[in-house]
């Protein structure tokens, strides 16, 4: 191995092999993937998401939710993800067509969020939870996202979007209310849009659970 050009060719080729398989291949195939027609509703799969939910993806990214929450359901019987109710089926590439960044995640310090919109469809629950997680789950180790909310004095009628049911040291005092910022609203819209429970032909639901 005293010939530098030979070494160069070698390190080039070995690297290229994986580059083709793990970069070029997904870019060309998965990167060009299209939604499927939805036979039941006449829409498309995965369903399109609202503008607010798209804005929420940015808040999700800038808050770093992905470091504790995955968004993928692994296949059975390799994993028990489906049996544990994370989703009705394995998530597949097409599920992430609507994501600017696919937040697959590598940690489940907190629960998987692939289907959080289906599991927890209540907007106020999410706001309560983001403002003070231990209001809804007293053993939660999620940090509070209070900085996405504003505590203000109630003037006249309480705001229609004020967060209900807050307790604890940061709960608003009498005559005050907590209202979500635009970012908080977007984040919750995004969370509610997370429903990977529609049927995709490439991901059959396991017949025998």
């Amino acid at each position, binding site marked *: 191995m005293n010939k530098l050009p030979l070494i160069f060719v070698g390190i080039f080729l070995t690297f290229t092999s994986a580059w083709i398989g793990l970069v070029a291949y997904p870019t060309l*195939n*998965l990167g060009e993937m299209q939604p*499927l*027609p939805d*036979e*039941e509703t006449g829409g498309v799969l995965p369903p399109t998401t609202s503008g607010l939910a798209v804005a929420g993806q940015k808040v999700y990214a800038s808050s770093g939710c992905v470091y504790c929450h995955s968004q993928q359901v692994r*296949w*059975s*019987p*390799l994993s028990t993800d489906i049996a544990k109710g994370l989703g009705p089926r*394995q998530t*597949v*590439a097409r599920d992430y067509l609507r994501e600017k960044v696919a937040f697959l995640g590598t940690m489940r310090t907190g629960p998987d969020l692939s289907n959080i919109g289906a599991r927890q469809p209540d907007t106020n629950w999410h706001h309560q939870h983001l403002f003070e997680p231990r209001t809804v789950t007293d053993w939660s180790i999620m940090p509070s996202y209070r900085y996405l909310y504003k505590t203000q004095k109630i003037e006249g009628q309480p705001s229609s979007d004020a967060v209900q049911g807050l307790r604890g040291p940061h709960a608003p005092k009498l005559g005050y209310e907590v209202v979500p910022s635009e970012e908080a609203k977007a984040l919750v819209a995004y969370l509610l849009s997370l429903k990977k429970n529609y*049927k995709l*032909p*490439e*991901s*059959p*639901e396991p*017949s025998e659970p």
Partner: protein
Amino acid sequence: MSSPNTPQEEPFNESQPENEVNIVNIHASILREREEPRDGYEPIPLWLITVFFAVIFWAGIYLAYYSGGFSKEVYNPDLVSWQGGGSAVAAGPPDPKVIGKRLYTQNCLVCHQSSGQGVAGQFPTLVDSEWVVGGDWVGDNHLVKVLLHGLGGPIQVKGATYNNAMPPWSQLKDEQIAAILTYIRSEWGNNALPITPEYVKTIRDQSQDRSDPWTQKDLKAIPSETIPAGGAAPAPAETAPSAPAEQPAA
């Protein structure tokens, strides 16, 4: 080889003035260094070479079973592996019906159900359907075409009308399409001749210009044909793949 190597010069830095830039002085540490590293030439142990080949052998086996046939549609290798075969028990050549069933489970079951009955009003039945086993104006060529390019719009199956869309499955290999069709033509009381991969290839070549899903109207315009008995491909397909359109309808 294992004894300490040649002795070094002693550091000789005592008398130099502290702040004078003297390479030798500043780099006194270098003078007590050992030689630059060299290579020894012991051979590679035989056991390591053996392990190397054993690992490569294992890798080949593993990929055969868990690569999902290198398909971009297969996400769960337990459902479909190499050529649709491969299971915990991998003795003997895979049974084509088992392959067909696996592929059906993977690709078709969501709509047409495991019973083949479909969903009334939404997904047509495959059981004793003229689209599957032939009959009326529908031939085996139509069946393959539907698989390859999909089917849209209102269609009649066993007298009932369905208005829905079936996606194209042209990404599947000829062998896989043949396996699925053979399976659905022999399951649930159906009893029609197997479809061969060669026949699928013939049809695929014929209709490669087609990009949209078929409609019943378009299909009706094509004369029906039946795959020859014995599982052999139609004669023209073997010699002149460009001319199978002239294959006479049965």
